[in-house]
């Protein structure tokens, strides 16, 4: 491509971006009138009106007085949902290749890496060197509003993601983001939301180099954090004549994380991590959950919330056709989408994350869960209010209630009808139209996908 064409293309892109921004600005109050309103927190309104003002939901109900200055959308035949939340994501953060330098062939799946977030060089001497630890890194400080995945994700109905740095054992602190894609500061709804933990081990020659090593390391850091608190308190109250404790940023980062995100995909991992969370005496959220169908009652009873990965297991594309798969592998592939239904039935607290499912395939993945017995109401809840509750932001987002942030999804028809088009999303009361269906050129494979388990 000649240089000037390249330049022109660039200019066009910029113009388009500017145009969409202008279009996105909606002055004054907006009323969505006569829509089916799935409030999630309350009953479904068959002919409801939602009034938005100043980025917030001002009113919702069947008999709402629409102010004269409101921009009224006659919403016949459409359904209004709370904006969807991807409960574990890297959208909005800088992208990097999904490899780690030290990952070995045949080892656990490589953990994605983020640019600008260099890991401490692994020192092979033990936990005191804090290997693969960046607890102090905050997603909220790394935001990239120009991430083109923001528009893709929005186009699939998501108004928010909970984004995490995802490299290392303690990867860093997440942030609840509104996908408004303008100023970094406006995107952050809550931070920190939690500490993203992986159990990826980095090979025999590196500490920790085994699953049990990683678990022991997490345990040690957790104990260290408890001890650090005592030490610091003791020193602060009587510094005179006392030995000054060392500052430890690894522990500081852990202390300020309100919860740990622990990976657990199959039944044994779920069982293991439920026990581990209880042992650590720290609030935890599990992610993965493909085999939750097997121990849904236990998950429910534990009270530990579970983020279910919507990337259902698939047969590897390059699988040897002559290789016979085990019954267990086959069963997991068959039954994984029934996990949400089992969790619903058991009364477990769960939400969804896309886990590398492309934004446009999320509804397809969701449909498989519904086909496997998940009620539509529970599916919507898991994508909205439950995620907000799990992250402690249900007072702000997750349902259509007066006073909450105006994050809405407007669908022409039902979210569960694959043909039904997403008409708009509102984020902080600002309207966004989905991008045209044809995906822009460029390969989306190899993107870092958070939430891969072990």
């Amino acid at each position: 491509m000649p240089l000037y064409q390249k330049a022109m293309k660039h200019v066009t892109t910029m113009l388009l971006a500017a145009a969409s921004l202008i279009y996105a600005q909606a002055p004054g109050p907006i009323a969505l009138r006569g829509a089916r309103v799935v409030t999630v927190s309350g009953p479904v309104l068959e002919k409801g009106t939602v009034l938005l003002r100043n980025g917030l939901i001002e009113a919702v109900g069947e008999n709402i007085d629409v102010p004269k200055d409101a921009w009224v959308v006659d919403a016949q035949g459409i359904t209004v949902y709370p904006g969807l939340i991807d409960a574990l994501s890297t959208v909005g953060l800088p992208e990097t290749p999904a490899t780690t330098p030290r990952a070995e062939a045949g080892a656990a799946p490589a953990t994605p890496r983020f640019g600008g977030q260099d890991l401490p060089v692994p020192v092979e001497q033990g936990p005191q060197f804090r290997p693969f630890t960046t607890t102090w890194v905050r997603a909220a400080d790394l935001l990239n509003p120009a991430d083109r995945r923001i528009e893709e994700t929005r186009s699939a109905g998501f108004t928010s993601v909970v984004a995490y740095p995802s490299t290392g054992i303690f990867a860093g602190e997440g942030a609840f983001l509104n996908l408004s894609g303008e100023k970094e500061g406006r995107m952050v709804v809550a931070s920190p939301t939690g500490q993203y933990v992986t159990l990826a081990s980095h090979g025999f020659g590196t500490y920790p180099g085994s699953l049990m090593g990683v678990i022991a390391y997490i345990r040690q850091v957790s104990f260290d954090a408890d001890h650090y608190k005592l030490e610091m308190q003791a020193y602060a109250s009587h510094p005179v004549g006392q030995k000054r404790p060392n500052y430890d940023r690894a522990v500081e980062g852990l202390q300020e994380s309100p919860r740990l995100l622990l990976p657990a995909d199959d039944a044994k991992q779920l069982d293991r991590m439920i026990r581990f969370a209880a042992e650590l005496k720290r609030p935890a959220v599990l992610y993965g959950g493909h085999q939750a169908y097997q121990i849904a009652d236990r998950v429910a009873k534990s009270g530990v919330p579970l983020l279910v990965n919507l990337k259902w297991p698939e047969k590897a594309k390059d699988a040897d056709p002559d290789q016979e798969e085990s019954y267990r592998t086959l069963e997991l592939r068959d039954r994984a989408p029934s996990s949400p239904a089992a969790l619903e039935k058991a009364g477990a607290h769960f939400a969804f994350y896309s886990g590398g499912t492309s934004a446009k395939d999320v509804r397809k993945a969701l449909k498989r869960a519904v086909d496997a017995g998940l009620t539509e109401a529970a599916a919507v809840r898991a994508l909205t209010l439950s995620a907000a509750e799990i992250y402690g932001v249900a007072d702000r987002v997750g349902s259509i209630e007066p006073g909450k942030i105006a994050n809405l999804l407007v669908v022409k028809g039902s979210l569960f009808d694959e043909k039904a088009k997403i008409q708009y999303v509102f984020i902080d009361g600002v309207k966004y139209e989905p991008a045209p269906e044809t995906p822009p050129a460029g390969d989306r494979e190899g993107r870092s996908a958070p939430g891969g388990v072990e």
Partner: protein
Amino acid sequence: MNRFALFLMALPLMAASQTTVIRNATVLTVTKGTFQGSILIRDGKIVEAGEKVLVPDGARVIDAGGQFVMPGIIDCHSHIAADSINEGAVAVSSMVGIEDVINPDDPDIYRALAGGVTTANILHGSANPIGGKCQVMKMRWGKDAEGLKFEGAMPGIKFALGENVKRSGSPGNGFGASPGLRYPATRMGVEDVIREAFTEARAYQKEWRDYQAKVDRHEQAVPPRRDLKLEPLVEVLEGKRYVHAHCYRADEILMLLHVADDFGFRIRTLQHVLEGYKVAKEIADHGTGASTFSDWWAYKAEAFDAIPYNAAIMVRKGVLVSLNSDSAELMRHLNTEAAKAMKYGGLNETEALSLVTINPAKQLGVENRVGSIEPGKDADLTIYDKHPLSNYAKVEKVFIDGELYFDREKDLEERPGKEARKKALIDKLKAQEKKERKKPEPAEDKKSEEPGGAQ
């Protein structure tokens, strides 16, 4: 699927009554002789074993048809049922433990059952002079990780000496070591690592004792930092954790016994201990057990000077000896491993059987629970069709805590059904994949039929 099938299988036994009688059996008690008779089991325990046992009303009766019942086999050295085995980059990895990574889905558990094993000591690997914590397990196939743990068993820890820990054969080992290579590179270094670790552990122990003394005097004090590496070593010093030490050569065996003497603890078992026959008296004097192979050796330089008489010689010198597998395959026929000690060294039947039952039970500190057929012990039993010391013996049934966990007949019966279920599942998934692949086309067609739409 196995689990479900086993559950169904065990259901009648458990539901009908908590009382079972195995009658018409040749009972090899190991500690109380051999007789033709019955075993009464109630609530998972052996209540009575003898020639004449009254069958209580409502008891489930299993006719052994003259077959052989022996205590479930105990393997003192195994690496099955764990998601990781070696934490290799540090010379002291006592902070890690198998207890954190138990894999209850490992089919080797079921296969071990099929070989008559009911209890196994799952050890950390041999990459470090001081390795990770061990886990004694019962082969309760179908239970979760907690359900596999041998409740109340003494905790253990793995030590290792010699070639594995000094990284013989690794690129850049020994002199001129490449940067970053782990210490130690020699047998001298191995001893040093162990001594240093226990010196550290003593200091750590003192730190906590001093803290406790302050608390007792009602003084203000911040508790010391918990150190997960040193905690298990303090337990070793205090006799609360057993040391299972991988070793081969006589010189390093003596070295380790001296180090333990210096620090005032005891090595519970020497593992592999292929040159144990050279220093059997010293091992016995230290009160240390030996867990060895019958005739597996020469897989590396330090494992050459081995003889099949090792187990028998150590037994005769007064060492508590067991035979272990260290292998998921060997684990399935430890009964024949025991029999080899009769050919090589002339142990009698009971002595031979002891090598895989009561002796390893003692080495693991669980002899009050398992290892022989005696009233009060757990009903962990294996039924063989022929004498278990025969090459031709096959395991027919295995009980743990009085529950049937393996039944050869049922296993064989269920295979066609399992095959069919698997085939049905494969077909279902194939059909689904086909549908998925086809889908895009009709979707495209429909799209074009749709009216302009909102976009």
